């Protein structure tokens, strides 16, 4: 039928405004743009990823997170592994290692019981994986499928990709949206969206960056401790990110002496060489979280609020961006993140 092709409509090209260029906004904008939408990304800061994404650990560890997070996080988080190694290939897939000081060994058993996709390894295998940890721990859990990335490099790469797309307009340093009608608005402002999402709260996190060339690690290492579990993520060039505290406190921007002490203590417990490391940076910000610490895509007319990524920004953003795009393009429904209360839905 010749005229059928003549009159065939090209698929609709929705227009969307994404507000907020943290990892949630950047991935959502990129997902919409690569599916053909006209995208305008607005960010009040001068460059992408300067909110709490800036202080993220960058561990892509869905199975480890399953220790304290709900199964939804483990499931959605697995999408991040392909996303950050193939779509935006900035992650290194070298697994992650979980260790405990000798006296806190019961913590390792508990961690193993509550997680999956790990292998219990002993001293010899630890040495093969991380030669610098030789002789320091006699048991560990190895999560071979997990990955890690440098959050600042990841948002920069997303920013570059977006800037190169003809159907994307980037507006940095502007808090207000131009008065132009768009089909969809995606509010990815994080904690700044409290005006619209009153049940959002901030959970303070503190991190620090150390530099030492005396020790090398190939993958994130989690040090279990009953009071303050801590992780160390290698960032390359002798830099290590240590994080992160979790405090129900909404005063951002400062690191307490106690937190600094805890973070440094944990680093020292992992390897004494960290005692000689140089302190490069202390940082702190607030993670946006809902009361159940689970993410939401809340739909209000043609506005989507993507929020509550809590301590799982880089882990959850790819799945949430995909869902948001499917809502925009295909009116899809995802009850697991769109209901007001996921847990209550489960119990009903």
């Amino acid at each position, binding site marked *: 039928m010749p005229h059928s092709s003549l009159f065939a409509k090209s698929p609709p090209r929705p227009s969307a405004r994404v507000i907020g260029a943290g990892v949630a906004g950047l991935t959502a904008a990129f997902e919409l743009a690569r599916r053909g939408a006209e995208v305008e990304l607005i960010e009040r800061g001068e460059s992408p990823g300067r909110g709490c994404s800036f202080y993220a650990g960058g561990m892509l560890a869905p199975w480890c997170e399953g220790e304290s997070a*709900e199964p939804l996080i483990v499931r959605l988080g697995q999408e991040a592994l392909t996303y950050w190694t193939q779509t935006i290939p900035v992650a290194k897939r070298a697994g992650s290692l979980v260790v405990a000081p000798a006296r806190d060994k019961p913590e390792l058993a508990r961690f193993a*019981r509550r997680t999956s996709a790990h292998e219990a390894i002993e001293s010899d295998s630890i040495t093969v994986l991380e030669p610098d940890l030789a002789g320091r721990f006699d048991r560990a859990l190895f999560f071979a499928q997990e990955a890690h990335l440098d959050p600042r490099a990841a948002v920069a790469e997303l920013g570059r990709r977006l800037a190169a797309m003809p159907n994307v307009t980037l507006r940095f340093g502007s808090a207000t949206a131009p008065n132009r009608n768009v089909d969809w608005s995606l509010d990815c402002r994080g904690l700044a969206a409290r005006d619209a999402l009153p049940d959002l709260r901030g959970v303070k996190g503190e991190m620090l960056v150390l530099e030492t060339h005396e020790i090398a690690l190939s993958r994130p290492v989690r040090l279990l401790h*009953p009071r303050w579990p801590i992780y160390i993520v290698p960032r390359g060039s002798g830099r290590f990110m240590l994080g992160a505290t979790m405090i129900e*406190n*909404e*005063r951002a921007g400062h690191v307490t002496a106690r937190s600094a002490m805890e973070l440094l203590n944990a680093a020292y417990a992992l390897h004494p060489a960290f005692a000689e490391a140089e302190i490069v940076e202390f940082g702190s910000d607030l993670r946006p979280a*809902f*009361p159940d610490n*689970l993410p939401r895509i809340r739909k209000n007319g043609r506005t989507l609020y993507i929020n509550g990524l809590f301590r799982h920004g880089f882990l959850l953003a790819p799945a949430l961006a995909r869902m948001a795009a499917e809502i925009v393009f295909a009116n899809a429904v995802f009850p697991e993140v769109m209901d007001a209360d996921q847990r209550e839905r489960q119990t009903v």
Partner: protein
Amino acid sequence: MQDAREDSWQVYGTTLSSRLLVGTAQYPSPKILSDAIRASEAEIVTVSLRRESGGSGAGQTFWSLIRELGVRVLPNTAGCHTVKEAVTTAEMAREVFDTPWVKLEVISDDDTLAPDVIGLVEAARILSRDGFQVFPYTTEDLGIAGKLIEAGCEILMPWGAPIGSGRGLNNPYGLRAMRAHFADVPLVVDAGIGTPSHAAAAMELGYDAILLNTAIAKAGDPVVMARAFARSVEAGRLARLADPMEPRDMAAPSTPVIGRAFTAA
């Protein structure tokens, strides 16, 4: 025997029916925290001011969540190492939570989290004089317990085992002696409880209530564990009221052996 349905206990003039007090730290999320508190049927929750708040505007969302639970708040001085720190924290808590109650912890060292009982007595004296109603976290030492009573405490909270250890009742003899010695003082086992059977055992010793946090918060399913503790505390209390049998060394058959119709060939 007291009627179990009207069973209640009193502290500082407040009558309470729940015999389980729970802490609010270390839960996977505020939502699970509030579901677990409801499941525990606790009437009192302890909150730590030190780490979580400490300033104006800090952690307001978290506090309003606790307030919404409609339970009594018992602020604690967790993590305080000196008398001065504990007193300052208590004063701050009184302002934030508008209550004279304080669970007084003076910790001797971070590794054991053992109470510094000497500092504890001194801080209890200062705070009681200042109008506080002090719930001291102490050991089973009877001499110290006496000094805490002299200092103005109307309740004693000995440990079962070190904080967060989950080892249960390390010294049942000491706890029993304390119960016998302070027959008229409300006694609460605070810290060290790991499983519901530990809580039931403490209640069977005649303790008035149990205070715990980690055993619920760090369970795989805190809400279900909270329910388990509510039942075990009730079971232990009922057992105490019901006057348990005495254990004996030899078997005591519940049916007569002699004259059985059938015996083994």
